[in-house]
């Protein structure tokens, strides 16, 4: 399979994603500079974490209009899977690939720590290595991870099983203390209508090597790579 990682000015998790994907795929993904207006043939597109354009205006707002993103949106609409992590999630919402947006953390502080996530829906390319209700631990590192959408949008996300992950306690319960950023309904990750786009604030690529503290992220990436051949 072939993958492409879009690199924006201010991306800083692009290298981690490249290393993690190369370990899963056995070949490196194409690294595509944001100013490119074409993308190589790809079975998977990754929008990596970071601080594109220094978070000017709103996190992800400038990057969402980069030339490469027009192609990403077109490919996503044609069904190519897109994994949007952290700043990538912010970019995906601003580009209209996913509903809602990520506001400043309720604490107004940068949060960098491991959190527990409850897998809400496992029937997708991205989450079928997990089972629904399973609790996994993954790192978050962001200042603008406070997911918000209007109530009707949230109800639709729930009705259509489009919430991928929620922040939870180690026992899998939802609680304010387990929500690192104030996200509405504890949402940590969501799918698009076809579950071929996943936006998530936690970083699976940072858990892709035992020496980094765990391999839950590698499990996820390995499974995606295996499914895409």
């Amino acid at each position, binding site marked *: 399979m072939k993958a492409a990682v879009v690199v924006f000015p201010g991306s800083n998790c692009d290298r981690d994603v490249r290393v993690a994907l190369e370990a899963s795929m056995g070949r490196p993904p194409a690294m595509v500079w944001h100013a490119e207006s074409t993308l190589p043939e790809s079975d998977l597109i990754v929008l990596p974490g970071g601080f594109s354009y220094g978070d000017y*205006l709103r996190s992800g*707002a400038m990057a969402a209009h980069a030339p490469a993103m027009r192609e990403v949106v077109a490919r996503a609409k044609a069904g190519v899977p897109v994994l949007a992590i952290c700043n990538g999630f912010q970019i995906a919402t601003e580009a209209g690939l996913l*509903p809602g*947006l990520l*506001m*400043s953390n*309720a604490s107004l502080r940068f949060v960098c720590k491991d959190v527990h996530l409850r897998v809400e829906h496992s029937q997708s390319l991205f989450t079928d290595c997990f089972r629904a209700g399973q609790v996994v631990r993954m790192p978050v590192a962001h200042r603008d991870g406070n997911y918000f*959408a209007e109530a009707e949008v949230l109800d639709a996300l729930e009705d259509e099983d489009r919430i991928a992950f929620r922040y939870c306690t180690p026992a899998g319960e939802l609680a304010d203390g387990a929500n690192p950023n104030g996200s509405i309904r504890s949402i940590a990750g969501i799918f698009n209508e076809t579950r071929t786009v996943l936006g998530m604030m936690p970083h699976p690529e940072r858990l892709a090597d035992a020496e980094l503290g765990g391999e839950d992220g590698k499990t996820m990436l390995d499974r995606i790579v295996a499914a895409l051949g």
Partner: protein
Amino acid sequence: MKAKVHITLKPGVLDPQGKAIGRALASLGFSGVGEVRQGKLIELDLQADDAESARVEVRAMCDKLLANTVIETYTIDLEP
């Protein structure tokens, strides 16, 4: 022609920065301040000839980039 775009959070959207400013004002002894909401001001120099076309263009800019209408609302002031 100049345009001033004021972008503010919609009513009901949590504004942690506004709340922090409100607390700071109270700690400085400014009593009697109710809710504080923080927004953005963007000034644009435009080449448009008339106010009507300028307004249409700035509105498009707001909808496409300057504001995220999920949580924000905007007002446009034009100055010749």
